[in-house]
């Protein structure tokens, strides 16, 4: 079986060396959820500057999806769910 990470519990395939952003976008996930009542998270600048694509990582600190290599079994979700039950 190929490598997968999990977005809101849904398995997302990725290729070796690919970023989280590349994997999510290929799966058609453009809206990365809402931190509060603001606009949803999204990949925007692609270079870690805008912080628009920061996602929650179960068991670790949030990361910029555009900078961070995907890893097998990573459990990710939108920002408001820090500590919430998606791990």
């Amino acid at each position, binding site marked *: 079986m190929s490598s997968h990470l999990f977005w809101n519990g849904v398995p997302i395939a990725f*290729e070796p060396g690919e970023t989280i952003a590349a994997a999510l976008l290929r799966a058609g996930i453009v809206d990365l959820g809402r931190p509060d009542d603001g606009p949803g998270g999204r990949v*925007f600048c*692609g*270079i870690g500057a*805008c912080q628009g694509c920061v996602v929650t990582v179960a068991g670790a600190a949030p990361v910029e999806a555009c900078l961070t*290599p995907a890893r097998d079994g990573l459990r990710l979700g939108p920002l408001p769910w820090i500590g919430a039950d998606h791990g």
Partner: protein
Amino acid sequence: MAEVPILVVGGGPAGASAAATLVEAGLRVLLIEQRDRLGGAIHRQTASGAESPVWRPARHRRNWAALTARLGAAAERIDIRTQTVFLGVDGEGRFLFEDRRSERVLARRPRAAIIAVGAIETIRPFPGWELPGVMTVGGAQVLLKETGRPPAGPVLIAGSGPLLPALAAQLARAGNPPVAVLERGRPWRAPGALARLILSGGPTGEAASYAAVLAAHRVPYRCGASALRAEPDGDGLKVACRIGTSEQSLHVRHLLIHDGIVPNRTGIPLPAPEAAVPVLQAGDGREALGADAAILDGRRAALQVLARLGHASTAGAASLERPLQRARDFQAALAEALHSARVAPSPETLICRCEGRSYADLAALAEDASAREIRLMGRFGLGACQGRLCGPMIEALRAQPLPATSSPRWPLRPVSVAALARLTADETE
């Protein structure tokens, strides 16, 4: 005790060139890069390590091969730390980084530092720019370089600058030509600037090849055209565009925007020139002159550091002024050719996405508001991006540089308390 290294932040062309120049002079270098590989946005390699299917000028390939060979030749004097994010300088003058692999913060005291963190793209805000599905042209290009795959579904490119047709041609070659390219400027109204561009010996061949690809794929390239607003529409976006004097609506999956680049200076601490630990900026992070000039500028910064440390005369750095001036002249001609008058955005237009602040909120501030007032009363630039994105927009909208805040504070990026708690200082203290 080991020789204290010189710090280079950023593994793009400027940082790699600076690092190579320093190690060739016999010094040790600590090179920090936020990504898992060197290259920067311009030389982003494919995730798989395979040859990139994305077309790009041969000189970029050659330049990067030459830089990596130089770094490789002195590998024993370079400590390259990838996936390591620069956090700033603390009150005791220590440079702080987060090693994202081990999730710990490192503190180092280098002999000197060269900060080469590149440029960031600017945009001219319009209602809806903040929506998911809207991305920068450069961000989309980095993704294309990494994956070799264009984004799925209809793509519209809007804004201004040479990156628009470049990415449009790359997307077309990769199998998804954009529905249109909307260039805000009207270059034929600036024939003098156009003539200077052509006579400058700049990459006119590159421009011609992009034009040929766009023509072959029937991608409309419209000048004097812009995106006016975007709104969610099914699984994509409805984008209202002005093309000439008419307005039309396009349904797309992705809207890619870009209005030039500016140096990424937010939070970079620059001490007085005579400080004991010199800190210099290099490349697009100092002055946005493009990838070729960044290699020269990285070398220049390294030669300046060598001169400061008594390893070289200042003549070497000075000899790079002329080619840098040519790059500056080229960028100035380009800016003049594509110049377009600024129109104030509508009041509801979001300016600061992090804090949800609109143009009406900005306009409500006093005309002579200080940077502190803009931040503390307006809440602009207080969010996660630290004003990297809205800062240039606010400068442009107020038509004046933002007054400087007090000395920059770390961290430049959000960092976890757990990583800070695992801070390791270096043994040289």
